[in-house]
């Protein structure tokens, strides 16, 4: 994973996040390695509870300090995020890195107007007056194509439709021209027609501003629509990475394959869907081997004894499965017989 030349915008090295409570310890993120180049869009795909959101929050150190144990390296634009203190950290948040959340309804403060919330961010990072902040907020709302932006500036979140709220959220995230945008399932709560609008908007703005984007989703279609590269997460681990074409076109990990095959599309009428059986493991008691093994149709004894290594094919193309190791003779078995 060594990429010479420009340093990566984001580098995660052996990131581990555990939530410790009296009753149990949840291993939410386990040994995650990831890099993101400037201007690149990375999609993290995974089932619910696979640790996508936790990884994103770890990037901004938004996890509850007292309960979350973060280890490993988190570097954004050369800064070691885990060692930042006070002001440095809050300068990073919203300035260098900003974030869009899944539920814009709950992610916006219900008692302040949308305009205020944007202006406040601008003021925080650019030290301007409130009025200048409001002006900028107006520009931003226009940028994200909010109709009648002037009126919406003074609207409260609950007065906006889901799509508009999410656009306001995006405007807020963009307010200080971040280098890195984190988007945690920003379109999941939206209607199909609105979702595509937002996706296209995000893509356009990303291209214009040259931001790096990490985009979390569990919808392969969304990834196909927006991603440059894809990382697939399962039970707190990244099990496969690659460009979007590679991963969606030629999935290597059995889990990725299962995801693809269980996604419904039109021409499957009357046939059963090839669903992945079972459900994900309990993160409080992780199995020692491959976490996917109990649901994997290729699983064998070796899978459950030790953690499979990261098998690296090219720069940025990885799969964590013993069956895809280049030296493995059993590799062709991976293509299941029709």
């Amino acid at each position, binding site marked *: 994973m060594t990429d010479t030349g420009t340093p990566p915008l984001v580098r995660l090295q052996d990131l581990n996040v555990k939530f410790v409570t009296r009753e149990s310890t949840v291993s939410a993120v386990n040994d995650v390695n990831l890099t993101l180049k400037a201007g690149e869009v990375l999609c993290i795909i995974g089932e619910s509870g696979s640790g996508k959101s936790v990884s994103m929050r770890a990037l901004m150190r938004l996890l509850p300090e007292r309960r979350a144990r973060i280890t490993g390296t988190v570097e954004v634009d050369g800064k070691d995020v885990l060692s930042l203190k006070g002001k440095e950290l809050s300068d990073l948040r919203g300035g260098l890195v900003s974030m869009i959340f899944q539920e814009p309804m709950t992610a916006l403060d219900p008692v302040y107007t949308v305009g205020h919330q944007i202006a406040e961010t601008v003021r925080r990072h650019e030290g301007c007056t409130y009025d200048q902040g409001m002006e900028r907020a107006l520009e931003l709302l226009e940028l994200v194509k909010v109709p009648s932006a002037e009126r919406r500036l003074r609207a409260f979140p609950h007065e906006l439709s889901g799509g508009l709220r999410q656009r306001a959220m995006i405007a807020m995230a963009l307010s200080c021209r971040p280098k890195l945008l984190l988007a945690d399932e920003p379109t999941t709560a939206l209607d199909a027609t609105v979702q595509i609008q937002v996706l296209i908007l995000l893509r356009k703005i990303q291209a214009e501003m040259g931001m790096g984007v990490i985009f979390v989703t569990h919808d392969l279609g969304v990834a196909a629509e927006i991603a440059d590269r894809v990382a697939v997460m399962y039970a707190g681990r990244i099990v496969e990475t690659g460009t979007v074409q590679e991963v969606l076109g030629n999935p290597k990990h059995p889990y990725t394959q299962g995801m693809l095959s269980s996604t419904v599309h039109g021409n499957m009428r*009357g046939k*059963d869907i090839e669903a992945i*059986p*079972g*459900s994900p493991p309990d993160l409080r008691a992780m199995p020692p081997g491959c976490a996917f093994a109990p649901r994997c149709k290729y699983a064998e004894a070796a899978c459950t004894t030790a953690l499979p290594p990261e098998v690296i094919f090219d720069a940025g193309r990885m799969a964590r499965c013993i069956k895809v190791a280049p030296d493995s003779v059993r590799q062709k078995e991976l293509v299941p017989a029709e």
Partner: protein
Amino acid sequence: MANITMSPADAVAVQGAPAVRVRSYWQNVGYRLRYDYLTLFFGAMVMLILLSAVFAPLLAPMDPYESSLINRLKPIGYKDFILGTDELGRDILSRMLYGGRISLTMGIMPVLVATLVGGTLGIVAGFVGGRTNMLIMRVVDVFYAFPSILLAVAISGAMGGGVVNGMLSLTLVFIPPLCRVAETATSQVRNLDFVEAARATGAKTFSIIRVHILGNVLGPILVYSSSMVSVSILLASGLSFLGLGVTPPEPDWGLMLNTLRQAIYINPVVCAIPGVAILITSICFNLVSDGLRSAMDVRL
């Protein structure tokens, strides 16, 4: 139409071992309480206080009514009077123990009755809605428009002193807020899909309330009413203090506080005992109620 490849048996096979230990909601509450040492401690205190009241006849070293004027207003530890004596030379410890019976009854009974009455009214109002709700809640609103102490004093003052009147007035004071809590909880639960689903099976109103509503609103109602116990103890003692609650020579903490007040210059420590008892009891009930609240506030 015959290509069913997956039989349900397959699905069972892959569901695997249970992911979590099976615990019911109440077991869960119990589990959380088990580790809440503060609550456990104060719970034990409450038990102790209750038991000492229940077994007062066995525990009390002396007759709480027997006076002896030679021994009036003696300090703590005088002769056999562990906590000293009152203005008639009666043993304070014995009176405190017996007094607990009345004070705690005055604290707990009104809340209990109000929980039953107010809870029922609230659940009915919340579930049935419409006109019934209007009728019940408007009446409740009227009583709610009186600050509780004002209402308690006004009713007690109107009906005259006595334990029964005192309890009656406190009950009336607690019915409206409990009714409101029950109504709010019920109308929240009522809108959840599982109640809709129950209606969709054609179930009758009463059956739905009994099976689906009750179990879900009991928690909040109980938490609220447990927090009312200490309020009730305080109000009851206040009434007795004003001469509206318990009548002498019955030992009651509030009343003892009132009568001992005259002697505060002679023996201030002894005069403080009933006050301290009220304070401690109230604190215990409050903290237990808090513990219960946080134990029951489990997001499932």
